[in-house]
């Protein structure tokens, strides 16, 4: 049997965007009834790892959104625009905020990426540009849309690494959408990016990659609708009339695999 922490981390991976607080409460209820030692610790360490590595957080710092991810982690703190801050993973808020000089030498790229992100992501967003320890340029866009009034939440996260010398752009776009009016529906999609471009064309390339990603989803949606959904259950029987329930139902000639799907 899988270990408790493995089960917890797989539940965290499947969790819908938004509603983190109620999700954590549910986990504590489940673990509270189990005989697991120190359940709080299992939840918080799994969540912390997931948020640093895979599901980056937006946190308000001095009135603007800042990012919590492994990419801008600097010691125990995170670096943002002119600030450094700690992050309390259990309360989802910034702590120990201090002003700091954050000069990556990429300010003009950061400005043009910010301009692109602000003109395509209407909700609560953050763009981030920095140089990684291996010398690559890292670009991150995170966007959150919480609309509990209309029963949905969504999150977009794209992360790119650009190698100036080879011109290689690698990245991963991930989107999770949760719709929960009279039910529960999740769209979870991701797409790996592998392109070649120049520094001057970098932001334009990302824009076209992200447009293509959205258009590709729509193409795949129509395929899923036509090839799968429509063949699961018909809208009407092939004779276009509703079933005659009652004794006369015996008059129907069943298909070849009458009675319960013999295989």
């Amino acid at each position: 049997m899988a270990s408790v922490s493995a089960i917890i981390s797989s539940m965290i991976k499947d969790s819908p965007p938004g509603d983190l607080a109620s999700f954590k409460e549910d986990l504590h209820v489940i673990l509270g009834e189990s005989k697991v030692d120190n359940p709080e610790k299992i939840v918080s360490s799994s969540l912390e790892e997931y948020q640093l590595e895979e599901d980056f957080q937006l946190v308000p710092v001095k009135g603007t959104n800042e990012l919590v991810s492994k990419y801008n982690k600097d010691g125990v703190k995170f670096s943002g625009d002119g600030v450094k801050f700690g992050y309390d993973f259990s309360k989802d808020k910034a702590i120990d905020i201090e002003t700091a000089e954050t000069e990556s030498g990429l300010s003009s790229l950061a400005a043009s990426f910010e301009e692109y992100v602000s003109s395509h992501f209407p909700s609560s967003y953050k763009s981030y540009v920095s140089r990684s320890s291996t010398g690559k340029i890292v670009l991150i866009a995170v966007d959150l849309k919480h609309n509990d009034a209309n029963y949905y939440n969504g999150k977009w996260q794209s992360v790119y690494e650009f190698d100036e010398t080879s011109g290689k752009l690698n990245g991963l776009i991930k989107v999770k959408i949760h719709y929960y009016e009279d039910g529960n529906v999740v769209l979870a999609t991701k797409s790996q990016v592998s392109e070649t471009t120049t520094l001057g064309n970098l932001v334009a390339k990302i824009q076209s990659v992200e447009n293509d990603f959205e258009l590709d989803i729509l193409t795949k949606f129509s395929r899923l609708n036509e090839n799968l959904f429509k063949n699961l259950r018909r809208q009407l029987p092939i004779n276009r009339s509703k079933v005659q329930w009652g004794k006369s139902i015996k008059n129907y000639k069943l298909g070849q695999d009458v009675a319960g799907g013999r295989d």
Partner: protein
Amino acid sequence: MHPLTSSEDLLSSVDKPLKVQRCQETGKNYLTCDYNRDGDSFRSPWSNKYYPSIEDEAEAPHPSKVLRQLEQYANDSFDIYRDLYYEGGISSVYLWDQDTDVDESGSVEFAGVVLLKKEIDANTKDAGSWDSIHVFEVVPGSGKSAAYKITSTVILDLSTEDNSDNSIYLSGNLTRQTEKSQTYTDSNSHISSIGSMVEEIESKLRNMLQEVYFGKTRDILGDLRSTQDIEVTKSERNRQQEVVKGIQGL
């Protein structure tokens, strides 16, 4: 969302896809759920026997004699429904007595569940499954009128996967409750009423699922990221409004 108070709440509020079991006596497949379960075995709607076999079949819960006849009639009817709408898949209906054993008059209350399942593996990339669960109650009242109450859930999973880093999963469920009063003639006529109700509910749910899975999620994706420049879209909209105002002012 409401916070849970116990893990039992969680288990009972999670809708899991239905599992398939083989009836050894008839060679037919059937669907399993809590309502046909006894320990680790499940009663077949085709033979009325539990599989994997249990030591004392007679001790395990079975419907009363008349209700079992009604259950067979319901299974035959829904098998035709399944064939007409699903063109494949599996259906199973289970009925259970409430306080008093059911008789043929139709005046005794009972309950049941209708299960339908279909899976498709279209090609190596795309896969889909549909599970519907309709739990119902038949409550005969005064005169020849009965109240029918159905709680319906459809679990729909659709996916396409080029590899683990290029994938789309659309999965979830929709639930709705339906109540109706209708006249009946005998116990068999309750099955006809449940049948037409399930047929109508599934058609409605199918439309809702299509709208939510392909329409709503697409709209929300557009809310997250706009393929058009937001400023450009805004100024175009303003310009259109100016034109409309201009025309109205003429």
